[in-house]
Structures are given as structure tokens and as C-alpha cells.
């Protein structure tokens, strides 16, 4: 790993300043960035740790809205997001306990790994990504694998979730990494159902419109039995063919519906 300067600001304002420097990069839990740096795939000259910023941590409930500070660990969300059980459950299934004690929602969303769990929750919930500069709707935030609407120097400070009436996340583990080989987050609101799929697509997390329509009119696992995703856009690799991924995504949606 190349060397770098390490700073740990105590406020968002300080972090904004630090991250405006050339070669500076945000460090949250480090659970993705550090392995990447070990492989020398990232070589920032300054790391700005966000974990010392109190205002970026914690889970707050306000009516039917749940707000999570970007530097909140997966473990904390699993424990404290009881108002949104599907989300707490998702957080409790990310990686392993040690990863959950360090990894954060902000880091996960900034990274937007195509197999990550959180993006599906954010997209299916229609959450709002709050950054150091602005607020971004989930539908605008995810822009394909490892790519987001975040701009240079901009960082996530919090995520605001509207709490659905019913929701669940179903994940099928990739046997080696235990990330999602396919994962489905289903959220039912008064206005309709949103379905987001992670792990499966070459384009990263996406909404499955057909399933949303079917479930909005008949919220049952059977409603999507006959639906299928086009395998051609799916990831095909040594862990699963495209056809398998397409199938798995549907099965996960059905299981999420059944569990919600």
C-alpha cells in the first residue's frame, strides 16, 4: 500500500475542507477501501477519516422517516433501525460481524458495488442520499456499477428512508465473497410497490418495473411467478450464468415478498 497522510476531522465542515485537497479521499469503515489499497488499485495521498464526526453517526426516527448518518456502521443499523425491520435485517446480513462493526452505509453507497446490499434498500425505498452539498433522490443516485452521482470532493452525510408498510430483503450469497449473488429488496408503500435487484446486473442495482407493476396490483409471491428478467443484461461469471442470475433474482423477489 502506498503511503498517505491521515486526517480525522471532527465535523462535516472540517471534512469538506480536508476533502477539497488534491488526492484526498474519504475513508469510512475502510472495509472496501483498505483491501483495494492493499492491491494498489487505489493510491490516495490523503485519507480523511469520517468516523470521528459525531453528526454523521446514528439512527433517528421521525414519524415514518428513518435517517441514518453516513458513518453509521452496519452493526449499529442492525441494532437500532428497529423502526424499519427489513433494513435492520439487511444490515445484519452484510459480511460478517467484524465487517459490520466497521463498515458503514455511506461507504457502501459511495462504492456502489454491483453486489452490495444497501443499494437495493435505498433504491427500493426511494430514499434520499444527503451529501455535503445537496440531496439526491435514489433514482438519480445510482449510475451503474461502482458509479454514482457523487461529484469530486462531495461526500454522503446521511441517508433518509421513508418507511414502507411492508418490506423485506432476500439475499442469496455468492459462495466465496458472501456478497449478494442476487438480492432483492421489496418495499410496499400506499402508492405502490418498489422492487430493486442487486448482485445480478451488469448495470448494477436496478428497479424491476414489471415486478413492481405485478406486485402493486397483487402483492403475492405468485404474482411474479410467470415473470422473467432478460438474461442478456445479467452478470455471467464463474459463480453463475446469466440465466441463473435472472432466475435467482426472481426467486429472491418472491422470497422477499413472502417474508415481508
Amino acid at each position, binding site marked *: 500500500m502506498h503511503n498517505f497522510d491521515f486526517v*480525522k476531522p471532527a465535523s462535516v465542515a472540517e471534512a469538506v475542507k480536508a476533502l477539497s485537497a488534491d488526492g484526498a479521499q474519504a*475513508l469510512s469503515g475502510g*472495509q472496501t477501501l*483498505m483491501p483495494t489499497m492493499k492491491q494498489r488499485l487505489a493510491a490516495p495521498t490523503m485519507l480523511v*477519516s469520517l468516523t470521528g464526526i459525531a453528526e454523521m453517526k446514528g439512527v433517528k426516527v421521525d414519524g415514518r422517516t428513518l435517517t441514518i448518518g453516513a458513518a453509521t456502521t452496519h452493526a449499529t443499523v442492525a441494532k437500532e433501525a428497529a423502526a424499519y425491520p427489513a433494513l435492520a435485517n439487511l444490515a445484519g446480513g452484510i459480511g460478517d*460481524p*467484524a*465487517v459490520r462493526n466497521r463498515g458503514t452505509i455511506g461507504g457502501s453507497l459511495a462504492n456502489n458495488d454491483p453486489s452490495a446490499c444497501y443499494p437495493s434498500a435505498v433504491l427500493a425505498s426511494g430514499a434520499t442520499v444527503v451529501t455535503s452539498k445537496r440531496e439526491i433522490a435514489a433514482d438519480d443516485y445510482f449510475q451503474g456499477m461502482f458509479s454514482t452521482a457523487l461529484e469530486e470532493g462531495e461526500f454522503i452525510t446521511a441517508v433518509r428512508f421513508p418507511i414502507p408498510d411492508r418490506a423485506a430483503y432476500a439475499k442469496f450469497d455468492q459462495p466465496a465473497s*458472501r456478497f449478494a449473488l442476487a438480492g432483492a429488496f421489496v418495499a410496499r408503500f400506499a402508492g405502490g410497490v418498489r422492487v430493486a435487484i442487486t448482485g445480478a446486473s451488469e448495470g448494477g442495482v436496478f428497479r424491476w418495473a414489471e415486478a413492481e407493476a405485478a406486485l402493486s396490483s397483487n402483492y403475492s409471491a405468485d404474482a411474479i411467478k410467470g415473470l422473467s428478467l432478460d438474461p442478456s443484461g445479467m452478470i455471467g461469471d464463474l459463480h453463475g450464468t446469466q440465466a441463473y442470475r435472472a432466475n435467482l433474482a426472481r426467486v429472491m423477489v418472491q422470497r422477499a415478498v413472502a417474508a415481508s
Partner: protein
Amino acid sequence: MTKVAMTVNGKAVSGEVEGRTLLSAFLREGQGLTGTHVGCDTSQCGACVVHVDGKAVKSCTVFAADVAGSSVKTIEGMANADGSLGVIQQAFQDHHGLQCGFCTPGMVMSSAALLAENPKPSEQEIREYLEGNICRCTGYHNIVKAVLAASGQDANAIAAE
């Protein structure tokens, strides 16, 4: 180089580190605490698990500078005050929960974190909690038994079911 100070196994320690110095390296190279092992470079094997402020973390995936001021506990701090094996360590020995011993420090630290959160875990809860700790020797059978036993449950009866 910057100086970081923290508490390790109850003792105040400090050392010069670079930004990139990992907590695992700080412990192994800086403090001579080589019980914390490094088994991978992708944060998956768990041989390096220690506790930071009471929580299990992978010390290969934490910068030493990021946990300055914290209280760290390693395998070297798990024995009783008189030097005898702690309850979890003893259960690992009693139930042959280790063979080559390389994964063992991480296994013990993860198990300790589990039992702190959940004093009577089920077999399934133990297996899930240890998902980030890879053991190549034991097939996990005796590790799970050891954790059951350390929590005061009848490990032999549960394993025989």
C-alpha cells in the same frame, strides 16, 4: 510518521506509525503481540480479529491511526489474571477446537464478542457469527462445540442431536 497512543490489553502503549500502518502491523511489529495473525489480504479470513472498544474488528482492515485512543484487546489479553486459560480458551482446549492454531486467535476473539452479545447462542447463531473466520483444519465441528460449551450449554448433547 505520527505518534499514536492506545490501550492494549489494559496497558497504555504508544508508537510511531505511518498513515498506512495497519492495526495488525502495529500490534505485531510495534508491540510484539504476534498472537494476532494475518492470513489474507482481502479482509476475509478473520485470523486477525481483535476487539476495539469491545467490538470485534479485523485488525488488518483498520489503520492504527484511526483507532488512536481506543482500547484494544488481543488474544494475549484473554487469559485469566493468574495466567490460566479463560473460559473460552479452556473450552477450545477441552473440545479440541484447534489444530494448527493459526485461525485460533481470531476464532477466540470472535467467539468472545459473540458471547458478550449473546450469552447462550444456538448452534446456528454460532455458525453465522463465525462466518468471517476461516478455519482449514477443524471442519468447524469442534469450534462450534467449544463455543457452545463456553456458553454453559451441553455441547456434546447438542452436537449428537
